[in-house]
């Protein structure tokens, strides 16, 4: 927390120092650069709307801050980390891949795999008793070639 505060103060001092000095030479980061970062963030004020398109005042401020941070030379990851520290993990578009949050990523594949295994085991059991077929064997038809002709002839016979 302490360390973070120092960073904050440092950034703040930097921004004061460089306002008007550095910016006169280097142009501010463009909207596109800002949006590239902002599109990966969600502000708690307008939930489920990415920051780059959220129209509220709070989000506009966030974008300005990102612009400032980019101008200060912070990397994308540093900026995201700054927002997580300040506003919590929910600013990220998905849970951070750490600790307990891994559960979010691991559970669906495990369940899907379990479902697949169950299905294939069922397949095996179903396909095994070949002998016990129930008179539907005639249906065993080659679907590619003559099936249609046969089918329609059959149908015509029936209908006429």
């Amino acid at each position, binding site marked *: 927390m302490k360390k973070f505060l120092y960073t904050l103060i440092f950034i703040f001092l930097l921004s004061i120092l460089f306002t008007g000095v550095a910016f006169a030479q280097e142009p501010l980061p463009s*909207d596109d650069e800002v949006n590239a970062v902002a599109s990966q963030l969600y502000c708690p004020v307008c939930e489920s709307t990415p920051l780059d398109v959220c129209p509220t005042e709070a989000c506009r401020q966030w974008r300005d801050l990102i612009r400032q941070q980019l101008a200060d030379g912070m990397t994308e990851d540093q900026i995201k980390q700054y927002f997580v520290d300040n506003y919590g993990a929910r600013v990220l578009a998905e849970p951070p891949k750490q600790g307990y949050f891994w559960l*979010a990523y691991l559970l669906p594949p495990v*369940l899907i795999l379990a479902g697949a295994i169950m299905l294939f085991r069922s397949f095996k059991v179903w396909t095994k008793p070949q002998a016990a077929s129930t008179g*539907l064997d005639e249906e065993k038809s080659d679907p590619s070639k003559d099936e249609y002709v046969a089918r*329609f002839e059959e149908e015509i016979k029936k209908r006429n």
Partner: protein
Amino acid sequence: MIAEFGYGIALVSFLVAVYSIFAAVYGATKKSASMVESARRAMLLTFPLISLAAGALIYLLVTNQFNVAFVYEVTSRSMPTYLKVTAWWGGQAGSLLFWSWLLAAFTSAVTLRKWDRDIEFLPWVIVVCSVTLVFFLGMVIFYENPFTRFWLVNGSVEPHMFAPLNATIFTPDDGNGLNPLLRHPGMVIHPPMLYLGFVSYVIPYAFAMAALITGRTDDRWIRLTRRWSLWAWLFLSFGLVLGGRWAYDVLGWGGYWGWDPVEIAAFMPWLTGTAFLHSVMIQEKRGMLKHWNMILVILTYALVIFGTFLTRSGVLSSVHAFANSPIGPLFMGFVSTTLVASIALVIYRWPTLRSETEMKSMLSREALFLLNNLLFMSILVVCFWGVIFPLISELFTGQKVTVGPPFYERATAPLFSALLFLSAVAPLSAWGHSTIQTLGRAIWKSAAAAAVVTITLFFTYTNKIGALIGFFLIALILFVTFQEFWRGTRARQQAQGENFLTALSRLMGRNRRRYGGYIIHISMALMAIGILGIELFQTSTQGALAKDETLTISGYTLQYKELASWEDRGEGVNYTRAVVDIFKDGEYIGELNPRIDYYFDSQQNMTIPGNRSTLKDDLYVLLVDWQPVSAVGATFKVYVNPLVNWLWIGSLVFLVGIVFAAWPDRDPAEEPARRSVTQRANQTSAADD
């Protein structure tokens, strides 16, 4: 007066519905046909009654009765009349009444059919529908009453249904007005479409429950509800597509689908509903999967109710969600009761739901349908987990998290691709039996053609591997499906001597579900083109422009010409509209007018994009900001969304396909229950996707 009338009628219909539950249960258990008939008539009475109540509400809305709290919340004087009518479902209380009204209409329709052979289902179908109706009407009457009025009690304004002591009625001058987001024509029909889809899934569920309760668990309930589930699926799908279109046109974030929890809540029943459409065919053709179909119907209904609950109780927060509402606990109780009762019934009847035949080949059509079901369930697992995980995280760690688009896109992209592949292969496999050889022989021409298309695209359009895989699969579906049409038609031509068009139309007419399903496959492939385009090739840029300055993106050049701002007091809107000239490769191709509409009554901005849509790409321009004083500078955000138009084209084809498949030709109940083997083979049925 009208408000009391409306409330009174709603109360009466509530009581009538309660009566029909008891009469139906009594009639079924005591084998009293007259009691069941009485229950049926009571059920039929609810529809005209709720229509009256709804009429009263619409009258209040249209005539600006702002002393009614609901009218005050959702309308204002400046709104045109048609919007005042549609404001009926623009707020929680009204939309619950709308739900009830639709449910009563559907239940009436279903109880009016000929029941002779299925009379034992009737009382239980009435019970399930009436319980649902009683629940929704109960919420209207006890918690979210649209007829509540404002009363002046001791100097303060309070909402009450009936006049408190010493109170006088209080009438505000004007109402809040409908949320501007809901004033778009797409939004006028998007919610009712979704509700229609939701409500119509109650009917298959009611039949499934009736089958479980009576123990008559053969295919009968499936045959009876086949068409219902198709129509339900139509409304739900169409509602989702309309929602996407609305988001694209009005929400102003350059996309149509944001993986918002509320969107997902509506998407989840669609997933199980689609899986059901496929697996139900296996039961019809092969007598298999009876358990699974039962589970799918229950799951669909549960997801409809659960999704409605999540979004209306304030458990999920989102742009779409209704504000915190008192209906939460009651809804929770209903969700729990239906879920527990359904599961208990399935477990109780499990032994009677047994399969008749076995699976013979892992490549048979039924096996591929099962794979299809596995994929839909997998997508459901991802979606469900994505919606639920933030709740778990908040509860156990106190940390709120967002589960957003990257999570869903990464997890579902391979699943959707596999589904595309399946819908290319499955139509070529036969019921009962297929081998690698038969499949290979059927598919190789289409696969070769699709490969040619993909290679061409590689040299001319993109070298992204994901996109190429996607385009290959899309091309494969299209070729396979057209080949199916072609082969069937040729076969008929040879056998019948018909000309090509007659052969095609008779072929399709005799196998509506099959060929309707193929049309739907084609539409899915077209929609996939649009989705691939926007997901993989979207580009955007943003810039502040002074007058006559330009912004360039993907071959387009935008030139900012002017900006005007004016008020329309009558409509209660302030419009700010920019004029932007568009050039492509240096050539003038037209102007676009992105707008920001500010609604005074609700103090809300709407960002309306200027959009130039072609088959190749959409140029989508948003007005982000402008300098208010001089109007010389403005900030624009510009998206180029390649191929997205195919999404909407696909949606229209989809509509054609499903109407074709679901259009009533003859009463399914009239069909003979048992068929000969040849007939069964003839009926190789549609694979809907």
